[in-house]
């Protein structure tokens, strides 16, 4: 009699297969492209694929495609970063596929490099063109001496405010210093309105404010990381916001540009947002706001920088790309050539220009929406020029921002003030970095 497949043998078989499978599988590891030889330029035509959540990016690529017949760029829209785009990119790279170029938020670039998903650009002579980029943008894609992506749009922080209510109705001025911010927020709060509202779980605001104060949370030293979240520059920001939160003079229920914020801003109940320059486009969707809003510089400390960086994204050449030289050629055009910048502003509505000397043609004119103010040249340009260039993003910013956000949330309820949260967070982050297999230590 032939051996039959009984339930028991089937079970034993699948058990053995399971054990074998377990031994064979390890998390995706895209290999070590940055240790291998550089890929030479290709003779003949090349088609590049580019995944991004910028709208109408193909129209920008088409301008480049028409200029020459060697490189053709095809774009594919993906959901924005955490809404699924990152999962899609990383999965594709892990499967050894994916596009040549992908959009990655600036603060996320080192994390992608850590995942083995990026091509280091100095290997393709990116440093030679570094002068064409805005230093504030460039510093955000740099770790140690390596460049991991091409900056594509940035977000120098400024104050966007409802001039009609703040100046007209309440007789106040947008705060020029953080000291003034506290007084203004108090007065606005007494009038039954909020100067700003924060989503405390969104750590990115606090991080950009600390960056402006002059802190450098992550430094590299040789092959190791030094984490310093408790220096004077960080702690004065923590103390300041502890006082603001304790006094309950700003809103903490929802973040800027969320649906409830839009409703409240339209009613004139929330008067401002202090965040990245890309907010200008969002403010324009506040109901009934035309001609009423204006832009002012970020409030400052007596020392420190004029502004911080908030949001913005880079175009990264993925480690699975077969045409890094051509990809870099296209990105250089898109991110430094006036034609590329203007196209990105017109079609994709990017944030601040990544190029050094060109902010975009339309941005040199007064804005009708912001009551005729020429805010780009008058306000945002100085904000972009005085940035904390020593700031380096660490390869765990999602995690760090989540921890800072959790910390802010507990600070709002008064459980753990920010001055205690930062030292705790520093210890925690060093531990996480070590768990990730990195060399890290706390600053002394």
């Amino acid at each position, binding site marked *: 009699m032939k051996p039959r497949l009984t339930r028991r043998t089937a079970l034993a078989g699948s058990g053995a297969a399971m054990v074998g*499978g377990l031994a064979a599988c390890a*998390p995706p590891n895209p290999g070590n492209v940055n240790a291998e030889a550089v890929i030479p330029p290709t003779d003949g035509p090349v088609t590049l694929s580019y995944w991004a959540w910028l709208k109408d990016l193909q129209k920008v690529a088409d301008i480049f495609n028409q200029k020459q017949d060697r490189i053709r760029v095809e774009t594919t829209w993906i959901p924005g970063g955490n809404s699924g785009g990152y999962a899609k990119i*990383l999965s594709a790279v892990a499967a050894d596929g994916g596009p040549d170029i992908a959009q990655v938020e600036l603060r996320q670039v080192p*994390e992608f490099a850590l995942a083995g998903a990026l091509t280091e650009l100095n290997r393709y002579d990116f440093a030679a063109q570094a002068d064409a980029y805005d230093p504030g943008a460039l510093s955000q894609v740099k770790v140690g001496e390596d460049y991991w992506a091409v900056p594509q749009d940035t977000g120098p922080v400024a104050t966007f405010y409802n001039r009609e209510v703040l100046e007209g109705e309440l007789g106040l001025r947008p705060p020029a210093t953080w000291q003034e911010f506290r007084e203004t927020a108090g007065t606005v709060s007494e009038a039954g309105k909020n100067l700003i509202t*924060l989503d405390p779980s969104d750590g990115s605001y606090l991080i950009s404010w600390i960056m402006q104060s002059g802190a450098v949370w992550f430094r590299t030293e040789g092959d*190791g990381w030094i984490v310093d979240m408790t220096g004077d520059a960080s702690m004065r920001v923590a103390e300041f916001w502890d006082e603001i939160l304790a006094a309950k003079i700003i809103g903490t*229920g929802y973040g800027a540009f969320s*649906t409830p914020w839009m409703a409240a801003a339209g009613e004139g109940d929330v008067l401002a947002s202090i965040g990245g320059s890309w907010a200008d486009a969002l403010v324009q969707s506040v109901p009934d706001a035309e001609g009423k809003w204006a832009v002012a510089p970020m409030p400052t400390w007596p020392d420190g920088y004029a502004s911080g960086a908030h949001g913005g994204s880079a175009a990264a050449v993925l480690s699975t790309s077969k045409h890094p030289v051509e990809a870099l050629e296209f990105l250089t055009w898109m991110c430094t050539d006036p034609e590329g910048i203007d196209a990105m502003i017109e079609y994709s509505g990017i944030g601040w220009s990544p190029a050094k000397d060109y902010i975009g043609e339309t941005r040199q004119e007064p804005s009708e929406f912001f009551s005729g103010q020429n805010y780009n040249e008058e306000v945002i340009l100085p904000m972009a020029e005085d940035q904390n260039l020593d700031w380096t993003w660490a390869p765990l910013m999602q995690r760090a921002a989540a921890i800072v956000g959790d910390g802010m949330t507990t600070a709002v309820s008064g459980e753990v003030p920010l001055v205690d949260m930062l030292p705790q967070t520093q210890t925690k982050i060093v531990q996480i970095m070590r*768990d990730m297999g990195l060399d890290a230590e706390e600053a002394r």
Partner: protein
Amino acid sequence: MRSRSAPWVLLAPFLVVFIGTMIVPIVMAIGYSFSSVERSGLLGEGGLTNSFAGFENYVKALSNANFVESIGRMVLFGIVQVTVMIVAATVLALLLETANAKWPGFFRATYFLPYGIPGVIATILWSFLYIPGLSPIVDVLGWVGLEIDFLGPNMVLWSIANIVTWTYTGYNMLIIIAQLKAIPGELYEAAKIDGASGFKVAMAIQLPLIRPALMLTIIFSIIGTLQLFAEPRLMQTMSAGITSEYTPNMSAYAFAFQYNDVGMAAAQAVIIAVSAFLLSAVALGISSWTEKRR
């Protein structure tokens, strides 16, 4: 001989898909959960190696305060939400199955209707009723002096519970009604002859006989609670109270796709799956134990 191979041939298409999309991912996830990565260089550019980590990821997951908190939050959610929902579904089913219910078909369809709306759409729909300034509910409560912040950190869990209850009560009600319909008419007749009231009939006849249906809905609901993801993830953008590791599933998602720690994400996913298995087993155990004692 031919008859012996026939089932396998017929099953083959299913088996290929089943193994490819169910068994392989599960085996891989279990594999990932036992591995960790070591890197050299600032960003691992000096090379990285995968190594066997034993139960390290599990220990780390269970000692991660956020993950433990998310489990606690889910348990609390489950205890309150599942109870409220099952009681509501049972009461609705009993009311619709009483002899003097008016238009039972119409109401059955109405109560079941929310289940036809995808969870994502339901969440968006409800969130407009939660947002101050847009919501008529908040406005009306404000007029009578009740200031409720539906999206506040303490309230938002129950706002989510409300959405889930709204969506699934009708569905569970339908399962219970199906079982009620299977109760033989003679039992009701006998009860009538004995002079039992409607309430007595419900307590002494209907409730004991729909136990299997109740058990089924409870287990479905427990598993549903463990899977809690879409509603909180969507409401995250509207509420400051929802962190990226709000529920265990969101935590696994965050570790996999945001923190880039596949090993930890896999360990958390395995913990969630094992918990679902254990909780269902416990629920069934309690059920059969009480059954035997009667």
